[in-house]
């Protein structure tokens, strides 16, 4: 690993998120680890499947459960140069959700006069398989 870091090889990291946002630490920790990886210039992409799709739902409110509403932090992904966020369509549909229920995440394209571009790509299960197989490192949360 250290030799690879020195030689400047950038690996493709995919963070796979399968759990609901609140009730356990997995979602928040997974997001923080991904941001840290991105801060170290890794090529970071996010994948949301199963109950993980709830993590990106708009309008989360944690007041009643007394935890920090970290859902605002997903909007920082673009600032950390994470430009690919994949959400599995089948997982959304099985939960009665569509892309319209998700937070509108964007990144600002430095090379295109800071134009805001969408981060979220809703993909089919088959496309998700492809994305997973093309990644070098998979981390599950």
């Amino acid at each position, binding site marked *: 690993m250290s030799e690879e870091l020195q030689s400047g090889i950038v690996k493709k990291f995919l963070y796979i998120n399968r759990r609901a946002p609140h009730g356990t630490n997995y979602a928040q920790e997974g997001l923080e680890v991904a*941001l*840290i990886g991105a*801060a170290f210039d890794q090529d970071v992409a996010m994948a949301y499947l199963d109950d993980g799709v709830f993590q990106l739902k708009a309008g989360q409110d944690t007041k009643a459960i007394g935890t920090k*509403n970290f859902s605002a932090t997903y*909007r*920082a992904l673009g*600032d*950390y140069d994470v430009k690919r966020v994949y959400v599995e369509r089948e997982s959304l549909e099985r939960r009665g959700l569509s892309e319209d229920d998700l937070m509108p995440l964007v990144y600002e394209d430095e090379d295109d006069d*800071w134009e805001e571009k969408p981060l979220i790509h809703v993909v089919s299960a088959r496309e998700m398989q492809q994305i997973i197989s093309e990644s070098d490192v998979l981390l599950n949360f």
Partner: protein
Amino acid sequence: MTLEINGQSFETDEEGYLANLSDWSSELAEAMAQHDGCDLTENHWEVVNFLREYYDEYQIAPAVRVLTKAIGKRLGKDKGNSRYLYELFPYGPAKQACKYAGLPKPTGCV
């Protein structure tokens, strides 16, 4: 750890970051800076206030690279570079400024 200011004590972690965000005041920021031998000028405050706004919006303290880029966008290229920010905060712009801003240690900082 605790921090004693004007007879009041505030809880911090082992590196001096405030345990409770709500304890923060500008007097506390000045006192933390003085403890490090640093006087907060208007230029320092620009960065500290920016970080507090960033945290309010995103619920995280940004890593230095993210901070530098965001400062550049907000305050101009002459301030959005690591040389300028390291001159203000020699212990590391994100780490040191976050401390004075009462935020936790930045996400993505060693």
